[in-house]
């Protein structure tokens, strides 16, 4: 079974919740939504946004919150603010809200350092515990990580994490290595990122027999919290207690230090959740409810979070420096200019492009005003999404979730093969969220960005968060599940359609597969998909069609090379995308040929407006 993402202690709310205002304080923008009960169901009615106010002279996250809510006030005509206060509960039909809730990833998110004894065992378990709790893992230290003791100590000294999670050893096993790590941490005298005087929160979730020694060594040096071992025996992970402690300490210590968060916590009617944890709740809920294998992505300004649920096993990773504003320059550095340029359907000189990317980095709240700027941002997004999925695949490999049993031989087999759990042929649904996907002017742009970046294989459905409200609904689900579900189904999840992508390659124009689509009204569309073709067939959101597809002999659609398949495919606001560009997707290397191919594909699906 999957690990339920930990949620903060459920607050007791006695009054009815008919009007809810929720915000997500992102690294770039603070997004506010208003949810109202209309008849028997909850609907998202208005939204507002404002730059996150971490810049001087404000340096107070609540200013951005109030600005975003003020925009909702202006649009809805509802009075929500009384000066710097949110009016709760509702006074009448046009005044106040019943609760204010929020998520946050401003402040650079929760940055953690984790330690283990064996890097691929307790080190990875600790990493998964931290990632699952919504943290960014800035380093994994382990007894066998190849670094010399003094290098480890120097590393701990120079990094200034918000929190450290220590793991190591199975219960009843040897204590030496975990005590040794405690000694290194003690010697390093780690300092937290915010606040010079407060003690760094440190969670110990290793061999319980070492608790007395760890306490003796670290009690004076850190705000030490002891919890259950995340790896009580080698074959089992127990991540939930450590994750819950991470959440508690995040609220009690870390958020109290960030600019304005004390006020934000006081304003909110429920505990503030880290944005990735809230999105994780939603992703897991979708997968569980529909019994799906899914990949979810939240591409933000500073980070890209990837979530996956395969065979019920939940995983999350965060690529800390892949994002569309603060980290945009790092996407260029990691992907390389050529990889970005391969998606741009026109010529632009390197110097201009580099300067533009850096200017977005230093002024992260700006938006593309011209079509070519939009196309460049979409090109960068493809690379950020691609790199983040590679990162995710590399980490979603080992034990997953609590009570997940496997034998020692599996562990060694997995270490040798490094096999990822992500199987793109078994993937049912891709869910996209984050500004660049949710706010793309045309939905087909979101769909093709995800198709190009992830290269789904076979038959895969795609959806997008309508206006970026998954974090809000994640935190809402902790206090009112019905409200969260109502809004999620009716206002949040936008099904884009289904992508059918044969696996294999061939020369452009050669036959790839023959297909027969039977529409719900009985209409039949027979055709041939050639290599190099990208085709869009209208199929509305509430429609389901049947597609029978016979690939040529070297091409596979999941049933084997040359074997035909028949599948029901769901429609969406974009429709049914038949992708004959081959898998792996290969773009022409010649510049002119590549521009011509991109122009043809983009025009085939109506990706951008035609410039007259």
């Amino acid at each position, binding site marked *: 079974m999957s690990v339920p993402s930990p949620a903060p202690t459920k607050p007791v709310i006695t009054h009815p919740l008919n009007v809810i205002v929720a915000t997500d304080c992102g*690294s770039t923008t603070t997004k506010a939504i208003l949810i109202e009960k209309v008849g028997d169901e909850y609907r998202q009615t208005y939204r507002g946004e*404002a*730059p996150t*106010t*971490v*810049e*001087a*002279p404000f*340096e107070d996250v609540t200013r951005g919150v109030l*600005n975003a809510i003020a925009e909702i006030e*202006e649009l809805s005509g509802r009075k929500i603010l009384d000066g710097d206060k949110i009016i709760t509960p509702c006074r009448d039909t046009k005044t106040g809200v019943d609760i204010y809730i929020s998520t946050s990833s401003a*402040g*650079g998110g929760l940055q953690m350092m984790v330690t283990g004894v064996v890097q691929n065992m307790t080190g990875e378990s600790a990493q998964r515990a931290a990632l699952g709790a919504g943290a960014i893992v800035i380093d994994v230290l382990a007894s066998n990580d190849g670094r010399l003791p*003094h290098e480890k*100590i*120097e590393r701990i000294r120079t990094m200034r994490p918000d929190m450290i999670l220590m793991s190591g050893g199975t219960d009843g096993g040897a*204590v*030496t290595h975990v*005590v*040794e790590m405690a*000694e290194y941490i*003690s*010697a390093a*005298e780690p*300092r937290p990122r915010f606040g*010079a*005087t407060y003690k760094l929160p440190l969670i110990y979730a290793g061999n319980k027999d070492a608790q007395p020694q760890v306490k003796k060594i670290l009690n004076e040096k850190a705000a030490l919290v002891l919890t259950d071992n995340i790896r009580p025996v080698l074959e089992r992970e127990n991540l939930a207690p450590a994750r819950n402690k991470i959440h508690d300490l995040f609220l009690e210590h870390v958020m109290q230090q*960030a600019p304005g968060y004390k006020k934000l916590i006081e304003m909110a009617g429920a505990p503030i959740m880290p944005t990735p944890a809230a999105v994780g709740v939603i992703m897991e809920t979708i997968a569980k409810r529909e019994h799906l294998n899914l990949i979810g992505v939240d591409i933000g300004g*500073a980070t890209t979070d990837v979530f996956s649920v395969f065979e019920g096993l939940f995983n999350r990773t965060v690529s800390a*420096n892949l994002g569309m504003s603060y*980290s945009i*320059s*790092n996407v*260029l*550095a*990691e992907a390389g200019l050529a990889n970005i340029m391969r998606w741009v359907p026109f010529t632009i000189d*390197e*110097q*201009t492009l*580099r*300067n*533009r*990317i*850096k*200017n977005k*980095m*230093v*002024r*992260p*709240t*700006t*938006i*593309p*005003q*011209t*079509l070519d*700027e*939009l196309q460049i941002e979409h090109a960068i997004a493809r690379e950020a999404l691609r790199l983040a999925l590679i990162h995710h695949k590399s980490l979603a490999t080992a034990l997953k979730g609590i009570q997940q049993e496997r034998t020692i031989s599996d562990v060694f087999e997995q270490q040798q093969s490094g096999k990822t759990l992500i199987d793109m042929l078994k993937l049912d649904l891709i869910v996209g969220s984050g500004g660049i996907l949710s706010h793309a*002017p045309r939905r087909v742009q979101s769909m093709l960005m995800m198709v190009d970046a992830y290269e789904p294989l076979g038959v895969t459905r795609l959806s997008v968060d309508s206006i970026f409200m998954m974090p809000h609904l994640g935190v809402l689900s902790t206090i009112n599940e019905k409200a969260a579900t109502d809004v999620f189904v009716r206002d949040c999840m936008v099904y884009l359609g289904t992508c059918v992508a044969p696996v294999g390659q061939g020369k452009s124009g050669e036959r790839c597969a023959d297909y027969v689509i039977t529409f719900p009204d009985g209409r039949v569309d027979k055709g041939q998909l050639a290599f190099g073709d990208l085709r869009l067939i209208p199929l509305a959101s509430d429609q389901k069609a049947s597609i029978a597809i016979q690939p040529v002999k070297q091409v596979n659609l999941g049933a084997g090379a040359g074997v035909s398949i028949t599948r029901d495919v769901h429609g969406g606001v974009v429709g049914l995308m038949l992708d004959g560009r081959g898998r792996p997707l290969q773009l022409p290397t010649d510049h002119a040929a590549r521009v011509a191919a991109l122009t043809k594909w983009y025009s085939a699906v109506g990706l951008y*407006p035609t410039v007259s």
Partner: protein
Amino acid sequence: MPHSYTPGLTVTEHTTVRRRRMLSLPGMVLVTTGEEVRANQAVARAELPGKVYPLNLANQLGVAPDEIQEYLIKKAGDPVRKDEVLAENKPLIKWLKTEVRSPITGVVESASPVTGQVLLREPPRVLELLGYVDGRIVEVIPQQGVVVETDCSLVQGIFGIGGETGGEIVIAVTSPDKALTPRHLTADMKAKVVVGGSFISSDALARAKEVGVACVVIGGIHDKDLRALLGYDLGVAITGTEQVGFTLILTEGFGSIPMAGKTFALLSAHAGQQASISGATQIRAGVIRPEIIIPRQAGASGYPGIAAMPQREGIRIGDQVRIIRDPLFGKIGEVASMPADLQKIPTESEVRVMEVRFADGSKAVIPRTNIELIEGA
């Protein structure tokens, strides 16, 4: 009157700034509240614990970890010199004796009976925290640092590299749209804060380093030249520790962009005066922008009643603004109108916009998020 929240950079002739000067670890504050301090004066001091050297004594002596105490000659807390014997065994045959000598001069921090490890620590290093600006101490935070206040002129840049420095302001070009070239950089600019115009090229950067300037303040730079200067591609805008020979502050951005007239005029008016500089930039939470602080000279005419800059709640019609995104990147104008309704821009996005009027009377519709207020007007 409509207004909009938009972050901006401060460029102001007179303001009062407070700078929090904090030690990275607890130490001793050397000044008192009300005291006048100089930029280069130490205001607090701390001792940075020395480097730690772990030594696995149990392994070296070939004994169990819980036995090492018996063999230790130096105990936890004892000072030790390099090559001094830390521990030795006591064999029956003398020439089988093993001695473990200290690899450093320092103290024995701890000896663990669980791991058999001894931690040695080098002597602490003294860290002095400077005042950074000429001003007065308005707050002492015991053991941690101080708050220094100064009446000054202030210019915030958009991006910088390199740490804190200071020096006399010298204007190297005749107008804000002129590029700074190697010939502008003369030997007498050593240790000075050199103000250029629109752009600095890679050869001028090399010349600045050769001359030994303290800081270059410039409108723009090409990203490729920054990459060459740093030796790597900067991924995220968190800077301040770079060592390139001088501090570099961009006032406008990347590319060749004339320095805002107001910024150039202000810096020109203070040519010959001392400035405190920081290139540190952090475009994340608790944003830090590079800055040029020019403290008021003693005896200068006062600004009655001037305190810290009042907080601006946003842009209003008539405000001077800078466009911060292509296609009109870097252009400066004033806000002509701020329509409340969303407008469709060429990308097909529907966004809130502003109408900006330029000096030649022409107007352009720009998304509000692509506008920056030139503060301190």
